[in-house]
């Protein structure tokens, strides 16, 4: 019996699921095919040690678009976000720095480093907040197309231009600076304390193979101020049940609308008939037909492996081959026998119920980057640590904890080549644990289980090309109308019937669902299904 679907989605990451949910909600017959045994892609929870649930890859949520949460009724489907209580930067000497949701408390903390910076901090937040509103408008609609002469595209450009014009001159200037400067240089304009600037600059480098002094990294600082949880701006949180729970909630919504979701169903190839995408062939050899095929996998994988260059013109192939995906991040997940205690602020407390950044100085971060540029992992890396079991006890047995450690830099291309990673994996894991243990001695002894994910592992296990966590670097040359390529930033591909819907499309990576949602809307309004 052959069933013909309206749409097949390749990949059950959160974006693929969002796209599926929207298409199903509009009455289309939808099939999601996920290669792994679990759904979620890089937003996934897995119990890898009995009783301990790891939020394996992504670990914090904030950019999840509120319109998607609303329209797909994700709260009803089980999505529950818990805000982080603090941003803590431990130091080897002194008390370290905590930034709290309470501005007054944050101000007192920062005043310990610099009184002038304590005054500046809320002003900076307000300025970024105003710009974030401008940018949100851009990420919640398809990318503007400066090359198009269609009235609707010109209209969209004009709307963005008008919104830009309505910014005050100072805000407009900051917007330009954000788009062009390095995170460190931009923060230098506002603050004097290195110990404050260092953790603030980190959000500029997440997922990029760039340092805090690299031009262009200031742009990502804004991301930081775009977060929303329960309508409260600027808060970051975790999902109850780990980030897999985000994917599960979306899957529940999609199934509720009638979508079929299969796991352990790896797509080997996209079927092309008469120059049009007609379905997929699974690893098992099964063929499944559909009117449209939507890839939620990374673009280079989609076009060069699943589709095949014989269906593309040479120019497109050359361009997609140089789409930049250099992985720079790794992840270490720990099952802990007991709570770690930080020397600079010992014991349990609100300070560890948020994210903990090992980012003692700008130079530290830049040295970590410099080491990685030449093909070695940073021996003293930047770490972003969350202990989600403190906020969500369901993740670990009573009294025990899981710790999620995001690590930079781990270059995909080691000097000896990426396939040398398996032989360096444990050394990398050791460097991460030792770095953190400098701040909380005794950490090693409390580890019950450790999972180390290198960029190589991210590629092998999650289909993230070169281990890039965002399906392609978030740099100006591949954002907006250039994501993934100029001319193909509206979810279509050169092959009729083949669409894209994940982080490699506008507005890019992160657990936000926007690419999936916007792609579904584009497919529906093109009335191809």
């Amino acid at each position, binding site marked *: 019996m052959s069933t013909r679907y309206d749409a097949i989605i390749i990949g059950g990451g959160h974006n693929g699921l969002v796209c599926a949910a929207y298409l199903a909600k509009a009455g289309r017959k939808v099939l999601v095919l996920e290669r792994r045994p679990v759904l979620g892609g890089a937003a996934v929870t897995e119990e890898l040690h009995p009783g301990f649930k790891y939020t394996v890859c992504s670990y914090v949520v904030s950019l999840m678009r509120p319109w998607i949460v609303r329209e797909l009724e994700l709260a009803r489907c089980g999505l529950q976000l818990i805000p982080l209580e603090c941003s803590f930067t431990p130091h080897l000497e002194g008390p370290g720095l905590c930034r709290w949701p309470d501005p007054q408390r944050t101000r007192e903390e920062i005043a310990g480093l610099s009184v002038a910076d304590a005054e500046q901090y809320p002003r900076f937040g307000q300025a970024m907040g105003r710009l974030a509103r401008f940018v949100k408008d851009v990420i919640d609609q398809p990318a503007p197309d*400066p*090359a*198009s002469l269609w009235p609707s595209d010109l209209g969209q450009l004009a709307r963005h231009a008008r919104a*830009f*014009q309505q*910014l005050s*001159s100072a805000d*407009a*200037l900051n917007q*330009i*600076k954000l788009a*062009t*400067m390095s995170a460190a*240089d931009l923060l230098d*304009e506002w603050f004097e304390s290195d110990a404050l600037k260092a953790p603030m600059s980190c959000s500029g480098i997440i997922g990029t193979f*760039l340092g805090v*002094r*690299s*031009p*262009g990294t200031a742009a990502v600082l804004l991301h930081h101020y775009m977060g929303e949880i329960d309508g409260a701006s600027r808060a970051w949180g975790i999902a109850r049940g780990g980030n897999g729970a985000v994917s599960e909630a979306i899957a529940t919504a999609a199934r509720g609308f009638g979508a079929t979701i299969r796991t352990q169903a790896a797509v080997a190839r996209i079927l092309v008939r008469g120059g049009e995408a007609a379905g997929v062939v699974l690893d098992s050899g099964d063929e499944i037909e559909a009117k449209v095929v939507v890839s939620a996998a990374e673009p280079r994988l989609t076009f060069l492996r699943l589709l095949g260059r014989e269906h593309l013109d040479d120019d497109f192939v050359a361009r997609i081959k*140089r789409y*930049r995906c250099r992985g720079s991040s790794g992840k270490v997940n720990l099952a802990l026998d007991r709570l770690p205690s930080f020397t600079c602020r010992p014991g349990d407390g609100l300070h560890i119920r948020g994210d903990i950044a090992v980012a003692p100085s700008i*130079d530290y971060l*830049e*040295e970590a980057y*410099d080491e990685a*540029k*030449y093909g070695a992992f940073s021996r003293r890396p930047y770490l972003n640590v969350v202990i989600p079991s403190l906020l969500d006890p369901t993740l670990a047995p009573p009294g025990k904890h899981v710790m999620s450690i995001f690590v930079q830099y781990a270059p995909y291309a080691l000097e000896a080549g990426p396939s040398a990673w398996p032989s360096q994996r444990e050394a990398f894991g050791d460097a991460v644990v030792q770095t953190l243990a400098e701040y909380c001695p005794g950490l090693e002894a409390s580890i019950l289980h450790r999972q180390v994910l290198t960029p190589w592992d991210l590629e092998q296990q999650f289909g993230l090309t070169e281990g890039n966590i965002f399906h392609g670097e978030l*740099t*100006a*040359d*591949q954002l907006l*109308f*250039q994501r993934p390529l*100029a*001319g193909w930033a509206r979810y279509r591909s050169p092959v009729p019937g083949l669409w894209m819907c994940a982080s490699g499309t506008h507005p890019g990576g992160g657990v936000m669902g926007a690419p999936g949602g916007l792609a579904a809307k584009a497919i529906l309004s093109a009335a191809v299904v």
Partner: protein
Amino acid sequence: MSDTVIVIGAGHNGLVAAALLARRGLRVRVIESRAVAGGLCAGEAFHPGYRHIGVHHDASTLRPWVARALQLSTHGLSLRPPPPILVAGPGEHEGWVLPSLRGSSDPTEALGSGPEPSLGEHQAGIHALEALLTSVSPVLQGFLDNPAPSLDLSTPSWPVIQRALALRGLGARQMLELMRIAALPVDDALAEYIPAPRLRAALALPALIGAYMGPWSPHSAGLWLLQGAQTASDVAGGPAELSRILEKVATHHGAEILFEHEVERIRIEDGRVEGVVLRGGDEIDATVVVSSLEPRRTLLDLISPLDLPVQLEDEIRCHRVRATSAKLHLALSGLPRWSSAEGVFERIRVAGDPASLERAFDAAKHRRLPAAPALDVRVPTVSEPGLAPPGHHVASVHVLGVPYEPAGGWSPEVRRRLSDAALDQLEEVAPGIGASVVGIELLTPPDLEARFGISGGHLLHGEAALDQLWSLRPGPLLSRHETPIEGLFLASGGIHPGGGPSGASGALAARAIQEADQRRGRRP
């Protein structure tokens, strides 16, 4: 007398502004603290019997429209194609000879001579890069050759629309390509054309002089394109000759140059310029003061804090001036012999590969000395033997990867280590050159700062970066050459359009003064 204009500094921009203003009949007095005109472009003796052609040793950035406006060719300016560049390597077959990639040439330039480019299998790649530059240069030159627009967004700005239309005029494809490439690291952009890493490093090198970037920094490709667009014909005699001609033209039009006079303060009353005070106490009254000094120095050192509006102070304090190079002048007893190519070369690049170029930047960033500095070398005596005794030569070297001050400071020992590191690099590609050195002058960033009054010792009066260009060089209040202080104008390379010896900032400042006069109905 109300028509007196004071120009502070007789660098190339100061001289261009002075010449253009004097030609309009204004009474122009140029005040220069040193005994020679030209500033960073002045040719000077650095060792008895040996002269260099300027701390800047390349005048091919002179904007053709500036040369035309001042009719420099009738005053002796001679243009020629930029000499080819030897990409020097340690071994016999490890060199290439590059043509100068440039956005435009002047039809009046004299024919060049010298070695033919030899690019081997990279011929096609270089041609494709040339074609890219040729197609985007007119658009980029539109940015460089016109005043920077105001960032006041309340009214639609014609210049912004004009630039946008020019960009659109490239056609959709080329426009998008330009936007993509400009954001890339220069090494990534070049890699799309040139597979050989060492050739890429050599191509990238000049765009990194004056940038706080390595070849792997995003946006460095944008700087590379801008520099290509700005590169036109070479000036025979280099910056030194350009300075001499500009001095002659300025005085020809009636400008008076006071050498060895230093402005100590710009007098300002009620937000309006009244004149300047010289070291020693003399005062000169003027309603218009044009400063061609590096803008931090003008605003923070020459203006009393009480007279400086706080917005201007904020803006200029954000102007970044971190130097990443030093300058080395070598007196040589003979012509260097390059192991990678036969023949006589005037321009040589010793850049290693992109990773070593990046490591040089790392050194500057972390305040270390570079183990293997990258070198941009000019041997001006190849075309002008008179700069050195017969048979002897001069090498003028930009040394990349040098911090303003290494951790621990610049002791004589540390200076020595830097010149040794540079000489070691040269020895690798020109064995025997070390033994021929008879004199050395090393100018570290603090040396340059002290001698030329440039903050941070930054040769471009401010870093080249996408956020320090156009209306943001140095910021929206100052990038239009006219300042909020009535009668004060800025004409430095730290102001739009920046860059090396281009004369453009001086020419745009002169234009801004004329426009201000017209607005006030002072002059037709």
